[in-house]
């Protein structure tokens, strides 16, 4: 399968393509001057969308209908003038269930666009959530970084507010953080305030959720009502950001542990991808081909899988690694890009 990887970096967007998974073409930097926190190919119309941020000119999104040759910036994106909050950064784009597009942003907000990213309307249910005064920003800001839509249900996750579920298209949001630790809080198991780093729903088994959290790896089999902590069992640490699943097998997940919340580099100095094939009961190293000594970091949007289960991740030192389904052997597809913020995989 020919694949297109939109690679968001601190210095613009790169489009990485391959017909055979062996030879890779690199196009970019596109959108130079913008930090691309996340970029997607909309599967409905093949448009490229990018969450773009600049220290001088603020947070916005860009759309391209011609494969990245030309770009249009969002015309209207911001928080209501009457409120106290200002838009700090755009973080995550997700194609909606119908024709809409969703955008997660800092400070813990969600936007919806019904005109393909030209204008964005803030989600009031989340903006005015009754627990908002108990949320706090994580080290990367208070970012809405995970958006999942499955079978009419929406899930989002915010660092550090926790995970939320909506059954009414985003009008209201229920916290789903039971038994998820927030060890940095006075009450280590609060209703909200958990620092989720990434949340994914299995596409074939929509009641099964996974999350890599600041305080552990978790799985839920009842749409987030209850969570089981899964670290230990072969994982060197409980801390990390990246998370990937297998499109066919809901018992498979991948994480890339980091040393600790104080030390955001690879656990034990090894660029280690860990795989479970039994729902998280056990984890094994799936790092054949990866450097055994490396202190690089893979960010929360930096690990992706495609429709065939192939895996891709990008590092803070600008390398893109890829592996067949199962997690090895890994090969370095591209190197020496700017620091990589996000990786997605789309059919080319």
């Amino acid at each position, binding site marked *: 399968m020919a694949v297109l990887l939109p690679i968001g970096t601190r210095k613009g967007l790169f489009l990485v393509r391959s017909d055979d998974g062996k030879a890779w073409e690199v196009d970019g930097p596109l959108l*130079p*001057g*913008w930090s691309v926190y996340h970029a997607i190919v909309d599967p409905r119309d093949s448009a490229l969308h990018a969450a773009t941020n*600049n*220290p*001088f*000119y*603020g947070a*916005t999104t860009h759309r391209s209908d011609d494969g990245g040759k030309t770009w249009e*910036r969002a*015309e*209207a*994106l*911001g*928080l*209501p*003038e009457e409120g106290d909050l*200002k*838009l700090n950064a755009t973080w995550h784009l997700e194609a909606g269930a119908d024709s809409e597009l969703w955008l997660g942003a800092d400070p813990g907000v969600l936007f919806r666009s019904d005109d393909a990213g030209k204008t964005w309307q803030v989600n009031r249910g989340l903006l005015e959530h009754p627990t908002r005064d108990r949320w706090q920003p994580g080290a990367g800001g208070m970012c809405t970084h995970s958006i999942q839509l499955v079978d009419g249900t929406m899930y989002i996750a915010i660092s550090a507010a926790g995970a939320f579920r909506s059954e009414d298209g985003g009008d209201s949001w229920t916290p789903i953080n039971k038994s998820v630790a927030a060890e940095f809080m006075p009450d280590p198991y609060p209703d909200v305030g958990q620092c989720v780093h990434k949340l994914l729903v299995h596409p074939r088994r929509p009641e099964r959720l996974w999350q890599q959290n600041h305080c552990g790896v978790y799985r839920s089999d009842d749409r987030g009502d209850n969570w089981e902590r899964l670290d230990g069992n072969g994982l060197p640490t409980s801390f990390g950001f990246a998370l990937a699943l297998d499109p066919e097998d809901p018992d498979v997940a991948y994480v890339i542990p980091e040393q600790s919340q104080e030390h955001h580099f690879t656990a034990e100095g090894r660029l280690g991808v860990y795989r479970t094939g039994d729902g998280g009961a056990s984890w094994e190293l799936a790092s054949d081909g990866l450097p055994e000594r490396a202190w690089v970091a893979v960010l929360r949007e930096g690990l992706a899988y495609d429709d065939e289960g192939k895996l891709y991740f990008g590092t803070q030192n600008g390398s893109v690694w890829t592996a067949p389904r199962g997690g090895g052997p890994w090969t370095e597809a591209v190197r020496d890009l700017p620091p990589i913020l996000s990786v997605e995989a789309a059919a080319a």
Partner: protein
Amino acid sequence: MAVVLLPAVLAAEAGGQKRFEVDAATVGDALRALPVNNLLFDETGALRRLINVYVDGVDARGGRLLDEPLRADSEVRVVGAVAGG
């Protein structure tokens, strides 16, 4: 007409145009007339913190900034603040 000069990233966002002639009485009027005004101002209408504006070579933040009056031959230069070393 006053002239407004944009740095590279803003010029790219303005379709590649770096120099604009605007009929504006103040710095604020001139900046708000640009096609990249939503990159210069936040959602409250405030000029973004790391944007500096020079009018005929003088830092407008030391003066009346957005209310600084312009002459017909004024040159307004938009510059990102020096940040990051």
